[in-house]
């Protein structure tokens, strides 16, 4: 009888541990941080059983093996200590510049021609800088036409940047069409602030 039980236990352990020696059980700790503006996001912890939502500043969950996540709230100092190196290694936040166009054209307004210069300052500040040029339109015209116009605007700015000395391989382009208006409007509204190109430097 004992032999049978031991055999069953043994088989169970093999099944559970996949034949390898008993694994060390890892634990995971996750902590949600406030953004620079004070807003706090949300992380949903799902170790396989019930979900745990973390959505307040420094809310933490420790996840071990077999037990439900243990919740707590850490201090800013504790997080700074435990994660000092990872936080110090954060890349600089990407930065966006916005240039505006004269209606229905890919010609800049005179102010925007000058703003292009400040992009170069940002490029010099960054290690291995990259640029994404993102074209946007207002809501006049069809979606398909606006996708094309927004991409044409992005191409135009990419060409300008190359002429000004930015290496082509660091520039990518995208056309967002009318999906991301700076100023929300009804369809077919002429809104100069939405006819723009965003230069995102990362």
């Amino acid at each position, binding site marked *: 009888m004992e032999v049978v039980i031991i055999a069953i236990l043994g088989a169970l352990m093999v099944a559970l541990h996949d034949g390898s020696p008993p694994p060390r059980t*890892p*634990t*995971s700790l996750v902590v949600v941080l406030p953004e620079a503006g004070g807003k706090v996001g949300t992380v949903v912890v799902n170790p396989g059983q019930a979900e745990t939502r973390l959505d307040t500043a420094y809310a933490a969950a420790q996840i071990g093996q077999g037990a439900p*996540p243990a919740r707590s709230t850490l201090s800013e100092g504790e997080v700074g200590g435990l994660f000092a*190196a990872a936080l110090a290694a*954060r*890349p600089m936040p990407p930065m966006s510049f916005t240039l505006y166009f004269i209606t229905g054209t890919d010609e800049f307004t005179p102010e925007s021609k000058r703003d292009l210069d400040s992009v170069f300052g940002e490029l010099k500040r960054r290690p*291995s800088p990259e640029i994404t040029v993102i074209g946007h339109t207002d809501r006049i015209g069809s979606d398909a036409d606006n996708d094309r116009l927004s991409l044409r605007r992005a191409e135009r700015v990419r060409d300008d940047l190359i002429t000004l000395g930015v290496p082509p391989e660091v520039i990518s382009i995208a056309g*967002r069409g009318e999906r991301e208006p700076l100023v929300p409007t009804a369809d077919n509204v002429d809104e100069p602030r939405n006819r723009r190109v965003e230069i995102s430097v990362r």
Partner: protein
Amino acid sequence: MCTYRALVGLALAVFVAAATAADIGQIKTSKGGVTIERGGASLPGTVGARLQVGDAVKTAADGSVGITMIDNSRLSAGPNSVLALDRYAFDGTTHEGQMDASLRRGTLSVVSGKIAKQNPAAMTVRTPNTILGVRGTEFVVKVED
């Protein structure tokens, strides 16, 4: 109908090509020992190194690394860490995409970008014993064995 199907097929082909062939991010900060494990090879994880789907970024006991993805998500790891970029796709026009990364060990700081902003269900970070759904934006994770 046929035209519609052809268009969907073409769109999918473009999406898949964008997801597999292109660079998905770049190393922006690198200190101490940092390597990129790619298909059995170990490449130097220096500033400017470009990353692809399937890469694992490893730091030594004196290492740390910071990565900016093409959707502006930022991932940075402290010493003795292994971070794998398991799945990644990002469409610059629609902002639709998917990002699954795993921290096998060590410490990780995450600032989510455009993928999670467009679709709060589109980004996950895994550890050996849990899955984190990233609704945005800033958090840290530590895995200890």
